[in-house]
């Protein structure tokens, strides 16, 4: 079992007390050095793919972009200061969608369901397998890694149709959209009680009750049909897991960030940015305190104002504009103002992404690096282009995953003799996180892990 660590300096920085942080006693740093630095993974999720011409890196001095000699494209300009931490992964397809025989409720739901599961859908609405984030969370748990939370699924105003994380086939996990609730989960003892383990008696009562409840589930199981038993076993497993995780929560002494109230939506652009910021600070705190190692973070609902969209193109909404700009033959596809608006849409997402990387890069680690070095942040989404295409995914990884990813590169995955599926990327991510799988999602689509080094 891993030891929960406290990064006091990081937490003080969160609280704006960085001067104190630098004066932190050497002893506490030395103690932290003894613990291995955990690897973490974040799935940063945005919608509508990208605009490929502005996503692609450009070559240096008029030459074609190569693996190491390239400049970031327009959309990635906000990430310029992180260029050395990026691995642009160009050329993977959502092949699992190509082999799907049944219908999907719509093209976005199709993409959502395939994006993290890489397998045929369970039905028109739900993913057909365990999503990569949940696979990694489950694998960590099986390997004995016990954190206060197995994973976080969070998002700013996520669309009800954004079905991303699946515990198993058709078992969609909810996305939490209120940072206050996530705060409560991460810091159940409250900010005031930070550093204090939960009242011993209360914790003991909780454990007795969970024990009692687990027995209830066990006694009921034989009386159920196989299908019902499966449903309740998933519940019972989580009850037992909660019992175990309680010990971790009680042992972590870690300060909680103070969050502003972001619940008002009267100014939606402010709501989006403030809520996103609050979630990023929670991710930062969760990683600094090792409260979880797997995060799925959906930022898809970017407001029109931030992209400079005001309906001037006669499209029904921003979504419609993104589609039309990506549609060959549509007048808007060659309208510079329309194209720029779509590029700005994606560039705004890049700004959010850069902000998250900044938070991770501000967590110092005992080996002299930062948490970003020990994390893999995959920027992914439900489609590749606004025209609903699911090929040549515009994805990238930030962070080195503790040495699992060689960054500062533009990886062009060969599309000949056949394109590779995002299954291969997920196998590589899972391997980097310690899960020794050789296949993920639809087995027929696996060609071996994508080399990230």
């Amino acid at each position, binding site marked *: 079992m891993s030891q929960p660590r406290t990064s006091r300096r990081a937490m003080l920085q969160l609280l704006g007390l960085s001067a104190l942080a630098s004066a932190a006693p050497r002893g506490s740093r030395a103690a932290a050095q003894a613990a291995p630095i955990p690897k973490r993974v974040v799935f940063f999720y945005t919608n509508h793919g990208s605009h490929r011409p502005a996503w692609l890196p450009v070559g240096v001095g008029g030459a074609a972009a190569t693996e190491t000699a390239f400049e970031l494209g327009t959309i990635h300009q906000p990430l310029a200061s992180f260029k050395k931490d990026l691995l642009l992964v160009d050329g993977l397809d959502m092949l699992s969608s190509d082999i799907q025989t049944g*219908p*999907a*409720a*719509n*093209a976005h739901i*199709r993409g959502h369901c395939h994006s993290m599961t890489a397998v045929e859908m369970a*039905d*028109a*609405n*739900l993913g057909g397998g365990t999503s990569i984030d949940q696979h990694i969370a489950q694998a960590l748990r099986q390997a004995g890694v016990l954190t206060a939370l*197995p*994973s976080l*699924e969070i998002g700013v105003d996520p669309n*009800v149709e954004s079905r991303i994380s699946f*515990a198993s086939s058709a078992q*969609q*996990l*909810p996305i*939490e959209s*209120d940072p206050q609730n996530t705060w*409560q*989960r991460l810091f*159940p003892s409250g900010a005031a009680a930070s550093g204090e383990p939960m009242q011993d*008696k*209360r914790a*003991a*009562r909780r454990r*007795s*009750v*969970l024990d009692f*409840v687990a*027995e*209830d*589930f066990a006694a*009921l199981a034989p*009386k159920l*049909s196989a*299908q*019902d038993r499966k*449903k*309740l076993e998933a*519940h*019972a497993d*989580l*009850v037992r897991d*909660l019992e175990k995780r309680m010990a971790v929560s009680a042992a972590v002494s870690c300060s909680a960030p103070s969050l502003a109230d972001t619940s008002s939506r009267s100014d939606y652009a402010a709501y989006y940015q403030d809520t996103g910021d609050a979630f990023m600070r929670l991710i930062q705190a969760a990683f600094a305190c090792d409260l979880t190692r797997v995060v799925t973070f959906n930022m898809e609902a970017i407001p029109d104002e931030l992209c400079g969209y005001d*309906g001037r193109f*006669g*499209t*029904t909404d921003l979504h*419609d504009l993104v*589609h*039309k700009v990506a549609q060959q*033959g*549509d*007048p*808007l596809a060659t309208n510079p103002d329309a194209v720029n608006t779509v590029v700005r849409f994606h560039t705004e997402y890049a700004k959010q992404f850069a902000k998250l990387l900044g938070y991770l890069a501000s967590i110092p680690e005992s080996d002299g690096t930062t948490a970003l070095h020990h994390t893999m942040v995959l920027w992914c989404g439900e489609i590749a282009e606004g*025209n*609903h295409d*699911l090929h040549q995914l515009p994805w990238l990884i930030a962070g080195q995953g503790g040495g699992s990813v060689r960054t500062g590169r533009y990886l062009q995955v060969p599309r000949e003799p056949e394109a590779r599926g995002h299954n291969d990327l997920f196998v590589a991510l899972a391997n980097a996180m310690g899960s020794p799988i050789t296949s993920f999602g639809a087995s027929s689509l696996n060609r071996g892990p994508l080399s990230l080094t």
Partner: protein
Amino acid sequence: MLPSTLLLISLAACNTGTIGEPSSFDPNVYNGIPGGDDEPEDPQACSDAPLGAAAPIARLTNTEYRNTLRSLLPALSLPAVPLPADVVVEGFDNNVRAQTPSATLIEQYGSSAEAVADSVVASLSTVLPCSESDTDACATTFIDAFVTRAYRRPLTAAERTRYLELFQGARSEYGFAPAIGMIVQAALQSPHFLYRVEANELAPLDGYALASRLSYFLWDDMPDEELLDAAASGMLSQRDGVEAQARRMLDDPKARPAVASVFAQWLRFDKMADMPKSPALFPEWNTQVASSARTGAARFVERVFWEMDGSLDALLTDTSSFVDEHSAPLYGISDAVSGMTLMETNAQQRSGILTQAGLLAAFAHETADSPILRGVFVMDRLLCSAPPPPPPGVTGSIVETSENAGMALTTRDRVALTHESGECASCHHAIDGFGFGFSHYDAIGRWRETENGVAVNAKGWVDNTRDANGAFDGVVELGQRLAKSAQVSDCASSQWYRYALGLGAANVNSCNLEPIAKAFADSGGSLKELTILIVTSDAFRTHGAVE
């Protein structure tokens, strides 16, 4: 093929089979057809055997959970608990196959149970059915009173003993009051509280399980004393007894929000939650207008159900609307109104739910109305024949041609240019046929005679239905057509039946549904009677065999 299409086809096929009269149902006699789900039955198999709905075990929805806590402890003020949202499938939040337990959910159940236990401990004297004396007898009385209600059935002797042992162990460790709290904390996390546990056999439900099915369908809440008494007395083993209880329950105020919730989920009122409109194009629109339009639609269905006997015909054709000072302009009403008021509207413009401004605005874009969203709504929610989604790579761009360059286009023109020809037409011809009928209503649900200076053309057509095909002009006429359609009637039966049992469209046994749909149509289409038909059906009262 879409599940909903499958259902209709199998439903139609069922019509050719031999259907047992509902009254021939004898809960004690079985001759053997398991009520499996997923598979459409061979029509010949729709015989007189009781089938039972093979509903997998249901967990309380968030609404049911919160209501149940309130009913269990009415004297206490309970803390709000942020539960993760229920997964919505095909519009409904209670699909038993999509109820994934997440770590968050389990934690929240734990926090909630602890918070409720704290409240109980803090007001012990109001909760305890005995004097606050530190005795096993008092604890046993509390277990019998509280856990029995939490489980919605009598406890077995073994269960009672387990709770008493939990109490005794806790009392020696923490004292009397915390030990009582732990009984509460445990009961509220038990599967017998969080789930509706039913015996796993093809058999009539026992009275208590049926009482829970009834109360969670009609009330979104636990059974009350009278319903539990009816379960105990055997009254619920008789169809008449179930009907009497159901009618009593519908007369109880608790049925109001529950029925409102069925309508809201069936008719996708969630789409009205947030209706942003372009301020440049619709300066009249704001959150207050949106809220009034939303409330008006909710009041409309409420009136249909409670004051018009749930008439499906009225739902689709009634010409009154609830408006207030904010929404009156949307309806072209210039009379001074203050507060939500029932007003007669222009019957040439407004008739039935499809002409409610809130719904029209919800099924529209920020800058324009949408024949497609509106057409799909009618097909999906009222005809149970949702079209398949567009294939990947399709965006709905209008390809500029020499004919349309520079033209002032109406929404209808745009849609027609986009996909009334070519490969898209195969599906869109059906969708647009409905959608074009809505051309008189703009993106905020107002009536218009012209659009971009062009006279509105609201001529539409209905294709590929069992009995509603043909041309029509405007939604008033469409609503009247749909009100007479057996396909619409059967679809309503299907939607309410699915909600009653938490089933997805693909998981409905058509042989179970068919007699209900037929009786609903025969009853003249009263949705209120439909709820009675559902709860008194063989399917609702029988547990199906689940593999």
